[in-house]
């Protein structure tokens, strides 16, 4: 019994001591990672060029993007929403609430776009590697709204 008590006490001392070490050694890395998050990028880099982030990019939450896109749609602009994210989430949700009955002609992936897309905007979701060749003729990169979401805008005529 005495051995078990000694063992228990040793484990207790080890637990508290190591917890203190873990806490102290974690403080710098946690402080550093929290500080990094204080400076959200307002510009994105693409092929060495800095693009101003789209309006929603300052806080690129999906619903923030929806708010932004809704205003655009309200002005008569149209969107093509690409990628699995659209199929798995937002597109079905929007359809359910009939926010975008016709404007969203999504469910295409880049490279599988209909010929000569006519939408004012193309949102390429889940496209972490976007190259110039991926951008359809007549469009230019406008910015990105998330780590892997790019927004293309139809060139002005």
């Amino acid at each position, binding site marked *: 019994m005495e051995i078990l008590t000694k063992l228990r006490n040793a484990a207790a001392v080890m637990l508290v001591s190591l917890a203190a070490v873990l806490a102290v*050694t974690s403080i710098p890395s*946690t402080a550093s990672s929290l500080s990094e*998050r204080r400076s959200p990028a307002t510009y994105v880099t693409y092929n060495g060029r800095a693009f101003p982030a789209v309006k929603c990019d300052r806080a690129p939450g999906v619903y923030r993007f*929806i708010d932004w896109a809704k205003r655009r749609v309200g002005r008569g602009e149209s969107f093509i929403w690409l990628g699995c994210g659209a199929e*798995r989430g937002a597109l079905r949700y929007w359809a359910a609430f009939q926010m975008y009955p016709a404007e969203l002609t999504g469910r295409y992936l880049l490279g599988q776009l209909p010929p000569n897309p006519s939408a004012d905007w193309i949102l390429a979701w889940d496209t972490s590697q976007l190259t110039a060749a991926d951008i359809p003729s007549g469009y230019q990169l406008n910015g990105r709204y998330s780590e892997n979401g790019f927004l293309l805008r139809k060139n002005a005529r």
Partner: protein
Amino acid sequence: MRAEASLALLVAVIGCSGVGMLVGIGIRPRARLAWAGVVGLGYLVGLGILIVLAQLAIVLQIPFLTALALTTALGVIGAISAARQLPPKKQLRPAWDSLDRAGLVLLSVVVLLLLLLGSVAAWVHPLLDWDAWAIWTMKAVMINQSGGVPSEIFTNRWYSFMHPDYPIGIPALEAIYFRLAGSEETTHMHVLTWLILPAAGSGLALLADERLPAKVWGPIIAALIVVPTVVTQALTAYVDVPVALMLSAGLLAGANWLESKRLNSLIVCAALIAGAACMKNEGMTTGLLLFASLSLLGWRQWKQLALGWAIVLLAVVPWRLFLSLNSITGDLSPSRLIDTNYLSAHFGRATGGLTGLLSQAFSLQGQSPAQDLIVGAILVSAAAVVILSLSDRVAVFALLVILASLLAITSAYLVSYPVSLSGRIASSAPRVVLTPVMLLMLGAMLQLRRRSSPAQSISEQ
């Protein structure tokens, strides 16, 4: 501007209401320092009660903002009741030794770091991670727009990815914020769930201080809330960290009740468990098993327990009835747990899931190899302390709760066929393992050196 003001208002209402409820049930420390703990615990309790009432309001199809009014009313009633009571007796307060002071300073630094720097980070951190926007916030938008749960969407098989059967406490909280803000503004919203982390730091300290000196609880609680994996996850607005913290605080409050049999400890425990039960199914299962363990060990106080069960079941029964009446189902089939044919064919998923979970516990994501080694040694030490203390009733309680959390998670792995087990573990284990890890560390902490009498408590109760 309205969104920012609404967020500040909601945080203040949750915190003040929780503090009002706590002082109303007699948790009124004399020391100023201990009030930081009351504020932290108050935020957890206030948030727990708010989401229980909001979920209930939605189930009963009454305006969900009623929950905010009721929570505020409970806080005000508590504060008025406390003002009419005599002040608590002052007890002798022996001087703290240098290790006690070091423990307190360490935890204070961590809590302030999370509160100040972390809140700013949460303020600007975008809502990008899947569960946060595709499950919780999507439901919140639906609740905000429809005023309730639109069953035509919750029963639509295309929406099964958003776990329609999960409790709606967090979506209801977000919907309350949307309604106050006047728009579905998600930019700063997850400050609400982020604040659970620093609040838990001081709240856990208040609960632990009833039994233990600061030299024990300071380092352990600080380590729990400052490791990068916990901080990173808390910023994503996933609810795994909030569930783990609510259950952890519930464990400490339950242990306090087992020793003191004071009703206020049991009410705090029940409120925290009810809050966890409204956040996620794992929180519901583990919370119910935690309270069942507490009832088993303290059954002689059945009248107090009946009140506690009433609070806990308020968070569970109406929602489960609502799901049943509206034919809303999830992607998991709990009935498989009693299907002997299924169990005999797939029991390997339980053992495989448990192995995957334990291996994850020893390699918490986002840490250096040296920190992984330290975490491994801490977990082995903590397990040894709990197992070697089983002659103590509180140790038995802690062990039952730890096993309950492992059971809840491995059961989910077991019944999730045909989803790939390895895929399921990869996507969930780094998050869900936090609950058993935190419960193990706090369960072991409860067995460490007891405070000598007279109480050397920061609360001087």
